[in-house]
Structure formats: structure tokens, C-alpha cells
């Protein structure tokens, strides 16, 4: 299958759908069936993505290496430096294309039902199309500039879609926050790009004069520099993939319509950060890798703990997403490209499913909600004490949570919404990592194995710590995900009115759920994934000096070199990870595997068991535990005070600073004549007292004032009598002549 035309179609189809909307709306009209246009465009893109995938299947040896096929054009020729734009096609791209088009198509279909009746219905689909275009563009770009362009475009689509219901304050705030927070990360990424560009004079990734080829020739003297560049590029991923410390926007982004959360904030855009980090894999150094791994692990753990105490069903899923993204980062930081991308793929499907499922629940509740009058809503907000048994957050009242998303109002929905229940249960089992049957197990298992393998083979304390954090996060994940299922679908209905109004969603919404549920089984399995995706070399990652790993590994390489031509080819790159990905012939790897698989059973049993004790059998009262652990609970409830830190300190300081600066400009710069002297003499301490004296503009005013006063004096000369003037003129001439005569 020809690559360029197909990719072009993939890009053009959704863009055309958006352009159709955009041009039409300039005339003040909308096409009512924009949904069909956008969905059709997405399905076309999906078909093309499948066709492209057949290339990979046909020739795995070629496409399994990153940067396999590149078609690039000069985009911005400056003379000696040129920026190019182009398509990159390899197995990773292909997988990403499939993931994006599948999830996007399904979300489009789901939205036809979910968004039905919204006053801005056509606009929603147009934005979805624009987003799909941007995301696909990001994925197929062969250079950092292209990725950055797609990167910012998905950001702005996310902004538009989070703020879709902008009449309410919460989405309006959330969309701004999302854009700003990711932008902070993007600036880091941009600085990283500037560093790379200044060094290599290009932003292309592949090819003989691409960044990777040039970076592989760097010596140890440049390692610190390269580490910093890598970390800065990773900053972009931190913002976009909501890693700590830039994670706070993602939970707020749940103010957007739920299909948007499923598409953008679970499956695709947030995964773009992981994709970027994976793409930059070859330039990561040991230091930057470790940094990434730590950020990932901390994020996984912190987000998981916060998720335990959330009541908003979408917020739980949001923190779960952050946590899972942390896993992917951890995998890549630990040197396993394959495991990271594998987890990305599986996660995209089951997390999209979870979000769409929650959307289905919310839709049902909203429908129920609309059936009631306004007073009822009021009742729910205040009357939860007696209405719910599960009320261990009584002191943290439900203010701020949409009643239709509040799990304390749910319960017993499994009979009302069987399809939603079953599909969501599958996804939950998958994310919890129930062994063998579900895709989530395989990918999470792969991550844990890789980290542990690194710990064992390098004898690295860091990786042991990372591994324990990841394992702990896995337990918590199983716990809070089942808490969600139990609170929503089992037990007795806690809000009878809403419960009565709820019903199973229409088929348009159910079908995507079913398809995604199928995809949550190991359709995408480890073996096929590892067949198609091969880990690129990391020339700058070496085993730590203290490790006993090097010598034995060299021997191993040598032995394998005789038997396995492919391994020999990679042997010179000193890259042990390749074998790790291939996996099966490495004793350390086997060892790790043998530890992780039983551990997974333990994790799942402990996590689900605890959850069931609390929320299914209700043997332990969550309220009591919360009361016992009050400080910890408060900390978690307040999300480790990240928001307070940012809003109260950073944002407030910036705004206050800008106000001061604005006043400064108005008063001070505008009047420094006296100010400068004072500043110089008395120093900045007394500046505030002298704000009224202005500086630069004051200089201008001073000129004006001097002119004014001179004019006031000189004006008396103007007697209004012509002859006086004439006398002055003639006298002046005479005087001049006299002077002239005297001089010459």
C-alpha cells in the first residue's frame, strides 16, 4: 500500500470535515448533520489506517524499526538551514494511527447519541474532527517541529473542547487551566528544541543528518548537555501527559463533555506525551532516563492515591489516567520502549471504554435529572447525609461535583444498565491487571518486568525503588477501580429518584462500548506487539559502573551473536535492552518475569479484595478508616495541595506581579524624572512612596512643561503690535549684519 497517499487521506479527511464547518459558519449557518460528515471522515481515516497497517504486517522486518520510512519535503528553506516537514511511517506510527482512528471513530459514534440535542451539536463534531487531524498530524510527523505543531494544535483543540460548555464557570476555568499548564511544559519542550537545533542545525529526527544520527556521535563530554535537552523535551510530555508536577489540569479537564474526556484526555492526546518520549528514546541518556522513570513512578503512585478518595466518577478515571500514564513514562524511563508503547495501546482502549461507560452512566443520570424539576437537584446537594450510607466524606460536602457524576448518588445500576456494567467491568478487570485474560495484565506486567529486570541486571537501587512504587500503585489501582465499580453498579440504589430515571443508553452509545470491550481482551497481545515493534538503540545509556552486569552481558552477547544474527547486529551498540524486549533468552529477564507474574496475582487479589471488603461486603467502614487516618485523608482529599500551591502561589504571584508591573508602567515609567534620582539615592525601599513621580513619560511631560513655561514667558513679547515685530525683525537683521562684519 502506498504510504504517502494514504497518510494524506488520513490527514485531509478530518481536516476537510472541520474546514467545511468553519467556512460554513462564517456565513452564520451550520450544517445540522455535521455529525455524519465528521464521522464519515473519521471512518475513512480508519480504513486508511488499517490499509497502512497491512504494510507492517507484510514486512515486519522493515517497519519494526523506528523511522523505517520517511517522506519529507523542505518546508521552510532559510538558505543554509532548512526546516522540513514530512511523513514518518513505521510500526509505531501505524499502531498510533490505528489507536487514534479507532478510538476517535468510536467516540464520534458515541457522541451522536451522547451530545444529541446540544445547541452546539455541529460545532462539537467539527472540533472533534480538528482534534483528530491534529493528533494524526502529530503522530505522522517525522521531525520535532512537526510534532510540536501537532502538539500545540491538539492542545488548542483540547482547550476548545474542555470549554465546550463555556457558559458555566467551571469549564471556562478548566479549559484555560489546561491550556496554560500544558503550555508551561511546552515552553520547556521548545527550549529543548532550541538546544537541539543550535547543536545539530536540524530538527529532523531520522536520516544521516537527523538528530538521532548526530546525537549518537556525541562524546561523554556532551552527556550533561544531552541529558538536559532530553529532560526539557520531556517537559513537554510532562505537561501534555499530565505528569507531576503539571498534572493538575487533567482532573479539571473532566468538565468537558465525556466523549472528549474519553478521546482526548484518556486515549490519545495525553498519550502523545508518552509517544513523544518514546520517539526521543534514542537520545535519552542514563540520567534523563532515570529522571523520566522517577517522574513516571511518582506520578503513578501519587495519582493513584488521590483517586482513592474521589467521588466524582470522571475524576476517579482522570486520576487513574494520570497514574497509568505514569506507568508508561516509567517504562520508557526504565529503558523499555516496547513496554511503554504496549501499555499505551492497551490503555487507550480500556480507558476510553471506562470513560465512555461513565459517560453512559452520566447520560442516563442526566436524562433522569432532566425529568425532575429544579428543587430536586437542590435536595441532592444538601440531603446526602441520610440518603447515603457511604458518606465518609460528610465534612467534605459534595459541593462542586455535578450530581450526575457523583458516585454517592449511584449504586445498583447493574440491573438498569447491563451493557454498560459488563463492558465497564471488563475494562476495570483489564486496568486492574487480572492475569492472562485481559490485555491490561500483559502490558502492566511488561512494565513491571522491565523495571525489575533493570533492577536485577544493573543491581540498581533506583530501579528497585521504582519497582516497588509501581507495584504499590498497581495495588491501589485495583482498589480504587473496583471501588468505582462497586459504588456505581452494585449494592442498593442510593438515590432512588435518579435511579428510577436511569436507563440503558441507546445503541449508538452501546456499540462503541462493546467494540472497546472486545479490544480490552488481549487482541492486541504481547507477542504480536513485540514482533512489530522493535526497540531502537540507546547509544548513551550504559549500565551503572558499580553494576556487575557489563562483563557477563558482553559474554552473553558474544554467545548470542553466533546463534542469533539479529542480536549480533545490535551487539555493538552495547544495548542490553534489546534483548530485554525480546525477552526470552536472558536469565535476568526470566528471573524478573518469574517474580512479577506471581506478584501480579497477589496485587490483584489484595487490591480487589480490599475494595470488596470496603465497598461490596461492607465489612470495613470507609468512614471509620478515613476518620482514623484523618491527616492522610485530608491530604489526599486536597490532592496534595497542588492546586492550592499553583493557584494561591504561582498564579496569584504572577497576576499580582503583573498588576504591580502594570502600575509601575503607568505611574513609574510614566514619570521617572524625579524617580530616577530617588531610586538611585534611596534605593528601592522608598520606591513605593515615589510612584507618583514618573520617569520616562515624565521626561516627555517635562519637555512639554518646560516648553509651556518658556512659552508663557515668551508670549509677553507678543504685543500684538506689528511695528514692534517689525522693529525686532529689522533690528535683528541689522544686528546680524553687524555681528557678521565684526567677525569677518
Amino acid at each position, binding site marked *: 500500500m502506498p504510504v504517502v497517499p494514504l497518510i494524506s487521506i488520513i490527514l485531509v479527511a478530518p481536516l476537510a470535515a472541520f474546514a467545511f464547518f468553519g467556512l460554513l459558519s462564517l456565513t452564520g449557518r451550520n450544517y445540522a448533520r455535521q455529525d455524519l460528515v465528521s464521522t464519515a471522515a473519521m471512518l475513512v481515516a480508519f480504513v486508511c489506517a488499517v490499509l497502512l497497517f497491512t504494510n507492517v504486517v507484510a514486512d515486519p522486518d522493515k517497519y519494526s524499526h523506528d523511522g523505517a520510512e520517511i517522506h519529507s519535503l523542505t518546508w521552510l528553506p532559510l538558505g543554509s538551514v532548512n526546516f522540513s516537514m514530512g511523513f514518518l511511517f513505521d510500526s509505531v506510527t501505524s499502531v498510533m494511527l490505528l489507536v487514534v482512528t479507532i478510538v476517535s471513530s468510536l467516540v464520534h459514534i458515541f457522541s451522536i447519541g451522547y451530545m444529541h440535542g446540544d445547541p452546539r451539536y455541529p460545532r462539537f463534531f467539527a472540533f472533534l474532527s480538528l482534534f483528530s487531524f491534529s493528533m494524526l498530524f502529530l503522530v505522522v510527523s517525522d521531525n520535532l517541529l512537526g510534532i510540536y505543531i501537532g502538539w500545540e494544535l491538539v492542545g488548542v483543540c483540547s482547550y476548545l473542547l474542555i470549554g465546550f460548555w463555556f457558559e458555566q464557570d467551571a469549564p471556562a476555568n478548566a479549559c484555560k487551566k489546561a491550556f496554560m499548564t500544558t503550555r508551561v511544559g511546552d515552553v520547556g519542550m521548545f527550549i529543548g528544541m532550541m538546544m537541539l537545533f543550535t547543536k545539530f542545525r536540524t530538527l529532523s529526527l531520522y536520516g544521516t543528518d537527523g538528530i538521532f544520527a548526530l546525537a549518537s556521535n556525541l562524546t561523554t563530554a556532551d552527556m550533561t548537555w544531552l541529558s538536559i535537552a532530553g529532560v526539557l523535551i520531556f517537559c513537554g510530555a510532562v505537561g501534555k501527559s499530565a505528569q507531576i508536577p503539571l498534572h493538575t489540569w487533567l482532573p479539571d479537564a473532566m468538565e468537558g463533555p465525556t466523549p472528549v474526556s474519553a478521546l482526548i484526555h484518556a486515549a490519545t492526546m495525553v498519550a502523545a506525551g508518552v509517544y513523544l518520549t518514546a520517539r526521543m528514546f534514542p537520545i535519552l541518556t542514563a540520567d534523563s532516563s532515570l529522571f523520566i522513570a522517577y517522574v513516571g513512578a511518582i506520578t503513578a503512585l501519587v495519582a493513584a492515591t488521590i483517586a482513592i478518595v474521589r467521588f466524582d466518577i470522571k475524576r476517579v478515571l482522570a486520576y487513574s489516567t494520570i497514574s497509568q500514564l505514569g506507568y508508561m513514562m516509567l517504562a520508557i524511563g526504565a529503558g523499555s520502549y516496547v513496554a511503554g508503547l504496549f501499555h499505551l495501546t492497551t490503555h487507550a482502549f480500556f480507558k476510553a471504554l471506562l470513560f465512555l461507560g461513565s459517560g453512559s452512566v452520566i447520560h442516563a443520570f442526566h436524562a433522569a435529572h432532566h425529568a425532575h424539576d429544579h428543587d430536586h437537584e437542590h435536595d441532592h446537594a444538601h440531603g446526602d447525609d441520610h440518603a447515603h450510607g457511604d458518606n465518609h466524606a460528610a465534612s467534605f460536602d459534595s459541593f462542586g461535583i455535578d450530581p450526575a457524576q457523583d458516585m454517592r448518588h449511584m449504586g445498583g445500576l447493574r440491573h438498569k444498565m447491563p451493557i454498560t456494567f459488563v463492558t465497564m467491568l471488563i475494562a476495570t478487570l483489564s486496568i486492574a491487571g487480572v492475569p492472562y485474560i485481559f490485555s491490561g495484565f500483559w502490558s502492566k506486567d511488561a512494565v513491571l518486568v522491565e523495571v525489575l529486570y533493570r533492577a536485577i541486571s544493573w543491581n540498581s537501587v533506583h530501579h528497585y525503588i521504582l519497582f516497588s512504587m509501581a507495584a504499590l500503585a498497581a495495588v491501589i489501582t485495583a482498589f480504587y477501580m473496583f471501588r468505582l465499580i462497586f459504588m456505581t453498579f452494585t449494592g442498593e440504589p442510593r438515590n432512588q429518584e435518579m435511579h428510577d430515571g436511569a436507563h440503558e443508553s441507546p445503541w449508538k452509545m452501546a456499540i462503541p462500548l462493546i467494540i472497546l470491550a472486545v479490544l480490552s481482551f488481549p487482541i492486541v497481545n504481547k507477542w504480536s506487539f513485540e514482533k512489530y515493534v522493535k526497540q531502537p538503540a540507546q547509544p548513551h545509556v550504559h549500565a551503572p559502573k558499580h553494576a556487575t552486569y557489563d562483563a557477563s552481558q558482553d559474554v552473553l552477547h558474544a554467545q548470542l551473536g553466533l546463534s542469533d544474527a539479529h542480536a549480533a547486529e545490535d551487539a555493538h551498540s552495547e544495548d542490553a535492552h534489546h534483548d530485554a524486549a525480546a525477552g526470552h533468552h536472558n536469565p535476568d529477564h526470566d528471573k524478573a518475569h518469574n517474580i512479577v507474574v506471581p506478584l501480579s496475582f497477589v496485587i490483584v487479589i489484595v487490591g480487589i479484595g480490599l475494595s470488596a471488603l470496603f465497598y461490596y461486603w461492607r465489612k470495613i467502614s470507609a468512614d471509620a478508616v478515613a476518620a482514623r487516618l484523618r491527616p492522610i485523608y485530608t491530604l489526599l482529599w486536597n490532592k496534595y495541595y497542588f492546586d492550592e500551591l499553583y493557584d494561591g502561589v504561582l498564579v496569584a504571584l504572577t497576576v499580582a506581579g503583573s498588576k504591580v508591573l502594570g502600575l509601575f508602567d503607568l505611574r513609574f515609567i510614566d514619570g521617572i524624572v524625579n524617580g530616577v534620582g530617588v531610586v538611585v539615592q534611596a534605593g528601592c525601599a522608598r520606591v513605593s512612596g515615589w510612584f507618583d513621580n514618573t520617569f520616562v513619560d515624565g521626561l516627555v511631560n517635562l519637555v512639554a512643561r518646560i516648553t509651556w513655561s518658556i512659552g508663557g514667558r515668551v508670549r509677553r513679547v507678543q504685543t500684538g503690535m506689528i*511695528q*514692534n515685530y517689525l*522693529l525686532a525683525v*529689522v*533690528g535683528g537683521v*541689522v544686528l546680524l*549684519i*553687524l555681528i557678521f*562684519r565684526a567677525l569677518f
Partner: protein
Amino acid sequence: MELNPQELVFYLFALLTIASAVVVVTIKNIVYAAFSLMVTLFSVAGLYVFLQADFLAATQVIVYVGGILVLILFGVMMTSGSLDLKLKLERGQLFWGGVVSLTIFGLLLSVITNTPQWENVDIGASQEPTTRKIGEMIMKEEYLLPFEIASILLLVALIGAALISRKEVRDE
């Protein structure tokens, strides 16, 4: 020093010019001043004759005496409320005016006396009447354009003067 009649007449005219000009400047009655100015103009015309500028002399008499002076007298009469106006002179203005005029006089005089090439220069002049030559130069040669411009200037002055001096007609 011997004076031939011609020179005698010349000095007479010169004296007349200066004396009458002094009267113009100093006398308080404006009508007398105007008549005194007429004497000045006449004697300047006489001086032109001595300079072999016969046409110029004639023009001087016709335009100045016949035109401008009459105009001035009309002006004096039309603003007749101040016919016998006692001109008051401000002391400072008078003083400084005198200083400036005298300085100018001194300056110009020194220029004349300090310019040796003007001493006794007399390149001679043709004795034939100048009217024909002036006519040719104005109508045929290089002064055609200035002449036309002068005529337009006069026209403009005519219209302008008429426009300014007529009673203002207010727009309704």
C-alpha cells in the same frame, strides 16, 4: 568747486527729494505728509531723468503721482475720522526706530564708501530714448514672462482689493 548747470539742477533735485522725504516722515498732519510725498516722488522722477531713464521717469510720474498718491489721498479721506489725528509716538519705539534706521544708514554708507570699484565708475549710457528698447525687452525678449506675471499680479491685486474693501455681505 565749479558747478555746471546740469549738476546744479541735480543737486537741487537731490535736496528736494531728501527734504520732502524728511517732511513725510516727521510731519504730523497726514495730508501734508501725503503732499510732501508727492514732492518726493516728483523729484525722484527728476533723478531718473538724470539717469537717462526717461521712460522710468514718466512711469514714476504717472503711476506714483497719478495713481498711488491719489489712492493714498482717498484712503486718508475715507478714514477721515482720523484726518486730523495727532499721531502719538511712543518714546521707546521712536528711540529704537531711530537707532535702527541710523545704524542701517551708517552700514549702507560704509558699504558705499568702502567699495572702491564703485568710485567714479561710469561705463556710459546710450543717449537714445529707452522706451523702444524697454518695449522690445518686455514684449519680445527675456522679460516677457515676468511681465505677464506682473500683469496677473495686478489683476489679482485689483480683485483682492475690491473683495477686501467692499462691505461684507453676510451669508444668509
